[in-house]
């Protein structure tokens, strides 16, 4: 039973952190990031590669966050002065290219063979038996910290400017706010948070390869954010739990319906697609968002 709870916390928790980063970019800043998974991949791979080469794990995680933040900021700088949907196109392109590079730069990443046997935080101290429990605790701690950080920012003057940029950029500009800079900051911070979730994922799975970071993962985060009502951090965490519930239930049912493995994962993907379509057509404000808010409807 405890094992089950631990696995819930680990999966839903890591994805909740991932989605919170997206919520900052979309819910608070109104930015369209369709490549969020790329930053998770950067976090995972950089942490693993650096720590495998002797760099202390904490620094490796930090490096992943910084690189992801810089990459996100660069994409933002290239496109934020243009139509908002160009950011969507560029980020989805970036996530595909990155996955491609990770697959093909075998000398660095060992391609689809993947990386394993890398150090994990406090591994010797905690020991293998209780490690997942420890990691679950770590994930909860990180989740709470990220949540607290985002809530504090949301209520701060910085958050106020960001929200004004989302709602009516002309107003923010007419009051002397550098709207462009705020959008870049939101992208950078959201990407860094995604990288952090990637590092945690690497610690949990003990094995990473480029197929962990497919474009569809970005849209899991979108579902989580939308379900909870865009801009609502608590809602995002709830969305993560709900989506995790969806995955568990479908995996459970697979046992009963004898699909082949590829057919069953494809069937699950079809459901994901239908969920996205359904949400957009019938309930863009999600479960916790208010009709008037209609955050997706701008």
């Amino acid at each position, binding site marked *: 039973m405890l094992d089950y709870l631990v696995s819930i916390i680990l999966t839903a928790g890591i994805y909740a952190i991932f989605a919170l980063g997206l919520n900052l970019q979309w819910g608070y800043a109104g930015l*369209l990031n*369709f490549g969020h998974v790329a930053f998770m991949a950067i976090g995972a791979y950089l942490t693993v590669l650096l720590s495998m080469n002797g760099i202390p794990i904490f620094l490796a995680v930090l490096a992943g966050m910084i690189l992801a933040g810089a990459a996100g900021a660069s994409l933002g700088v*290239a*496109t934020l002065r*243009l*139509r*908002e*949907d*160009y950011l*969507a*196109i*560029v980020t*989805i*392109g*970036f996530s*595909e*290219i990155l996955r*491609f*590079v990770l*697959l*093909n730069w075998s000398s660095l990443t060992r391609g689809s063979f993947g990386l394993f046997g890398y150090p994990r935080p406090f591994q010797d101290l905690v020991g293998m038996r209780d490690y997942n429990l420890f990691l679950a605790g770590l994930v909860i701690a990180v989740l709470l910290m990220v949540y607290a950080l985002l809530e504090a920012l949301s209520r701060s003057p910085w958050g106020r400017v960001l929200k004004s940029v989302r709602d009516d950029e002309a107003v923010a500009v007419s009051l002397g706010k550098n709207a462009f800079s705020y959008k870049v900051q939101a992208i950078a911070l959201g990407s860094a948070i995604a990288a952090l979730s990637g590092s945690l994922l690497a610690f949990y799975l003990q094995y990473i390869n480029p197929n962990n970071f497919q474009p*569809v993962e970005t*849209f899991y985060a*979108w579902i989580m954010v*939308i379900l909870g009502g865009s801009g609502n951090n608590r809602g995002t965490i709830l969305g993560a739990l709900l989506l995790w519930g969806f995955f568990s239930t479908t995996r459970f049912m697979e046992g009963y319906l004898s699909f082949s493995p*590829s*057919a069953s994962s*494809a*069937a699950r*993907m*079809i459901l*994901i*697609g*239908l*969920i*996205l*379509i359904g*949400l*957009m*057509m019938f309930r*863009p404000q999600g479960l916790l968002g208010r009709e008037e808010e209609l955050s*997706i*409807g*701008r």
Partner: protein
Amino acid sequence: MMEQLIANGIIYGCIIALAAIGLSLAYRILNFANFAHGEFLTLGAYFALFFAAILNLGFPAACFLAIAATAAFGVALDLLAWRPMRSSGASRTAIMILSIGLSIAIRNALIIFFRPDALRFPLPVSRGMSIYGMSITPLQIEVVLIASAAMLLVHALLSRTALGKSMRALADNPDLARISGINVDRVIRFTWAVSMGLAALAGIMYGLITHLNPNMGWSIILPMFAAAILGGIGNAYGAMAGGLIIGISQEISTAFLPAEYKIAVSFLIMIAVLLFRPRGLTGGG
């Protein structure tokens, strides 16, 4: 060596160009980036496979049917999905996310029905001939010829038919066109039909020169967007030029970069365009 790369680039570029025309026009007229566009290519190819291999129709007939079926699918999609979203005032973001959902659903439905393996059209293998030191198959030449014919047809459509001119008007200046009495819904449906038809043709040709798999369309969505943006969103001729440029650039890059990284070239071109000339070659976007 370089001539071979350029030749390959032209062949590949024609396919991108055809796909990009529809993407570009639809983007401008319907005002959103359709991430499911790649799936229309895939559908076209698989429809053709279905009609040819399972219903055993002659290949050319199968292709025509496939193009028609995909176009009909596009119009149906407009009625079922895009139009209700437009009427309910849905934001561009919501429509784009819907297109992502559609893309995921279609791709995976194909995986279930046709299995994820690579498939080939039931045609004899086309052998390469040596022309001026380059290896080119008759099939590849046919592909280029058909693509060129299609582009000429598109040109005729846009410049000589009333509906085509309305499409251009709507693409060039949506607000003005709406006021001047154009039946917007009809033009939109027509745009979808043309866009999907071209995509289906592009998909069939892509399947001819490579092979079919459920991800085939999605795997070239980036070059398609790059071509549309390079050419200037909303400009069919720009998309044609953009497609060829992207195709040739990608192939030439293999002389300097490992072949697997070809696709990064279109990404870099797209970024460069967005940084220095966001409205593209023709100033459309």
